[in-house]
């Protein structure tokens, strides 16, 4: 009886968003419920109480005339939410980032993970009434491949040799090497399924839970429920997604009822949110981080003493406390944190604050002053640089922080100047993250840091299936990065969003604002 009551309690908590799906699973598992039934509890709890109806308005931050519905070109949380409303993916990720079938009814790989096959659901129809088939999937996937592809996610498909149609409802991905992360990758926001042959993305056809009623790039869009949706979900009658660039205005809009949900709360306004009745803060711990990269072939990054000094001058707790208001975790110059689950190596020694040693190291490095570029690539990134500047000043070292605009930052500054701020979103798995930014040949490396051992380890981990060995490999990689990579990562930040208390069931997938956009299908409104 007590057990049942406890489970009920946890269910309520799950539903009103006080705990995530993962925590719910853990608590009911702890209460002695077997895993499969725990899973179904979670699904059941969500499905049975979700109410249909109502309209909501959600305000985003970044938006502009470049807003698009082309899955290859999605770049902002606004785009991601629209993509989530309009389309589906083959794979969806659960709150604990486990790949689940979505448009694929099942999927699997050969032994060395070089060939993946996906069976496609047969009951899915597009908004125009046509049926989803393998051709649509092949067309959608090929848009991310080849020399003339303009997809922003193209790099994630670089090891895929081809997408092949096997039957009317079955496709295969042939990879050049083992690619155990492929299902998780397919759960990323860009791999949406569009109708075969679509080239016009002003008014495209998707399979998603909502149909597009109207869209004005840079202003907003209205989506109405897809009555023929192939599964439960799509709880609202309509959703309106619009942009409010300024964070104070965004928060004001939520408080005055002009928006029901908003993303990206500046930590400074938490006090205002928390003190208001009827408004809930949604803080989703994640692995996204901000940091400082030092180009490994230039003056600072090539000097290990200087790099270490910068690491030792970080006031990590201060950054989490003051800049993130506690909504983040202390970073240890390791791109991976606890949000990545078992892949995180938690027992690495800390690069703790040590101004005396930093001073000695700076003296040894022979560098007497430095210049860095800082942009607000992540909330608090400029302030983090100012804190470092102040710490440098305290030990008599002159660090000149040049604030530069965010627009154009990734092309003009990042990877180019000797020292600059950087920011990364969380990736579905630790190996994807490390592969993208710390592989010796990674095109997106912050610093062009080349460590041959990393290459070996990353290759090994892709084919490794034994969890224990995987963890050992992960630990070795993270240790190397923490100690040697010319990157400073003082903190990982949580996603901070807020909603009206009448909205329930917002998923907690930590891959983006508002449950990585998953709220679009699963959230619902109390009548």
């Amino acid at each position, binding site marked *: 009886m007590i057990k049942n009551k406890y489970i009920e309690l946890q269910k309520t908590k799950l539903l009103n968003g006080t705990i995530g799906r993962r925590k719910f699973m853990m608590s009911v598992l702890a209460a002695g419920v077997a895993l499969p039934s725990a899973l179904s509890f979670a699904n059941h709890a969500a499905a049975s109480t979700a109410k249909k109806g109502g309209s909501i308005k959600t305000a985003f931050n970044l938006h502009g005339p470049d807003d698009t519905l082309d899955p290859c070109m999605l770049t902002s949380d606004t785009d991601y939410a629209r993509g989530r409303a309009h389309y589906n993916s083959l794979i969806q990720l659960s709150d604990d980032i486990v790949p689940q079938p979505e448009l694929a009814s099942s999927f699997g790989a050969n032994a060395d993970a070089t060939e993946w096959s996906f069976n496609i659901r047969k009951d899915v129809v597009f908004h125009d009434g046509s049926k989803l088939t393998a051709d649509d999937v092949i067309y959608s996937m090929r848009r991310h491949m080849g020399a003339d592809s303009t997809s922003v996610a193209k*790099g994630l498909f670089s090891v895929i040799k081809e997408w092949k149609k096997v039957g009317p409802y079955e496709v295969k991905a042939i990879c050049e090497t083992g690619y155990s992360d492929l299902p998780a990758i397919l759960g990323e926001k860009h791999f949406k399924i569009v109708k075969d042959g679509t080239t016009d993305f002003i008014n495209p056809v998707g399979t998603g839970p909502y149909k597009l009623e109207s869209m004005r790039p840079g202003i907003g869009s209205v989506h109405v429920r897809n009555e023929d949706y192939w599964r439960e979900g799509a709880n609202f009658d309509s959703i309106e997604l619009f942009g409010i660039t300024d964070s104070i205005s965004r928060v004001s809009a939520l*408080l005055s009822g002009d928006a029901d949900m908003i993303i990206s709360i500046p930590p400074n306004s938490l006090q205002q949110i928390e003190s208001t009745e009827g408004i809930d803060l949604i803080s989703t711990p994640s692995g996204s981080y901000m940091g400082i990269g030092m180009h490994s072939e230039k003056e600072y990054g090539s000097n290990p003493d200087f790099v270490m000094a910068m690491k030792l001058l970080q006031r990590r707790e201060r950054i989490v406390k003051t800049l993130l208001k506690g909504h983040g975790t202390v970073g240890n110059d390791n791109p991976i944190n606890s949000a990545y689950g078992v892949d995180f190596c938690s027992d690495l020694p800390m690069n703790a604050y040590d101004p005396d040693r930093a001073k000695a190291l700076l003296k040894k490095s022979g560098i007497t002053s430095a210049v860095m570029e800082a942009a607000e690539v992540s909330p608090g990134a400029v302030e983090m640089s100012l804190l470092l500047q102040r710490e440098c000043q305290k030990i008599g070292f002159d660090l000149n922080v040049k604030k530069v605009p965010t627009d154009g930052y990734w*092309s003009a500054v990042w990877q180019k100047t000797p020292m600059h701020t950087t920011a990364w979103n969380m990736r579905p798995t630790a190996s994807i993250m490390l592969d993208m930014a710390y592989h010796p040949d990674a095109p997106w490396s912050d610093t062009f840091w080349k460590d041959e051992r990393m290459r070996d380890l990353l290759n090994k981990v892709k084919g490794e299936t034994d969890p224990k060995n995987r963890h050992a490999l992960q630990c070795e990689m993270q240790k190397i990065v923490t100690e040697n990579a010319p990157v400073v990562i003082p903190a990982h930040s949580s996603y901070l969003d807020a909603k009206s208390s009448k909205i329930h069931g917002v998923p907690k997938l930590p891959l983006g604002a508002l449950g990585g956009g998953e709220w679009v299908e699963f959230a619902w409104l109390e009548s």
Partner: protein
Amino acid sequence: MWIMAARRILIGIFLIWAVSAFIFLITQILPGDAAELILGQTATDASLEALREKLGLNQAWYTQYLNWIYGLVTGDLGVSVAGGSTIADLIKFRIGNTLFVGGIVAVISIPLSLSLGLTAAMMPGSMIDRVITATTLGLIAVPDFFVAIFLILILAVGLGWFPSVSYLRGNEGFLKSLYVLTLPIFTLVLVVSAQMTRMTRAGILNVMSSPYIEMAILKGIPRRTIILRHALLNSIGPIINVIALNLAYLVSGVVIMETIFAYPGLAKLMVDGVQTRDIPLVQACGMIFCTTFVVLILIADLATIVSNPRLRHPK
């Protein structure tokens, strides 16, 4: 006079061409291009090249300029590089909002500030003058975004009288739009009237010290009559200029209001264009702004010519 006016109009047309060249030139100094901005952190050389090809960014500058001018003349503003929608579509909705807000603000603030400025000028140094001067000064002396946020916090979040953001879908009626846009209109009326009031007052007081007014004073004509009959007419040139500048500001300079109140207008569109390096969009908005300005100033100049008898009959 007619020849003078005609010349001024011809100059205006020439100016619009000069402006087009200037806009094209200034957009060329922007570092980076749309392809880099779209791909951002995930760009590779190959994907950049592919995207540039697709977006037509690889053409020589003179080809781009000629294409653009040809497009302008034939009424085709082109396609937004970043989003793919036609620029005409992007602009159509926003220009309505911009003109709506600007129009309402102008309708309220021009008569308001002219009468306040006149009142103040009629009794310089009086209590009324001091109050008007101090209030208008206070209003312009504080950043407009401070005023805007202050009004939002009090009138929208605190009292709940007006919406805090002026998000418009485009299907609202006149009154609903007016209601939704109350706060930005209110803020702009405060900011714009304050400046126009001051300039009106200053312009009239300036004329008051000229010899023919002194003459009128010596003749014993009442001050009120002097101001209304002589001073106002003669200070109309500078005053109209100030009005014209303010109207141009209302069309092109209100980016901060558009950002804070999240109402879609042209100025924010252009800023977005600059930030995404959407050059055709920046150029189109730039052309609209500059043309508006040229036309307003043209009108101001024509008015000056008409109002000043000396300019009307050049020797």
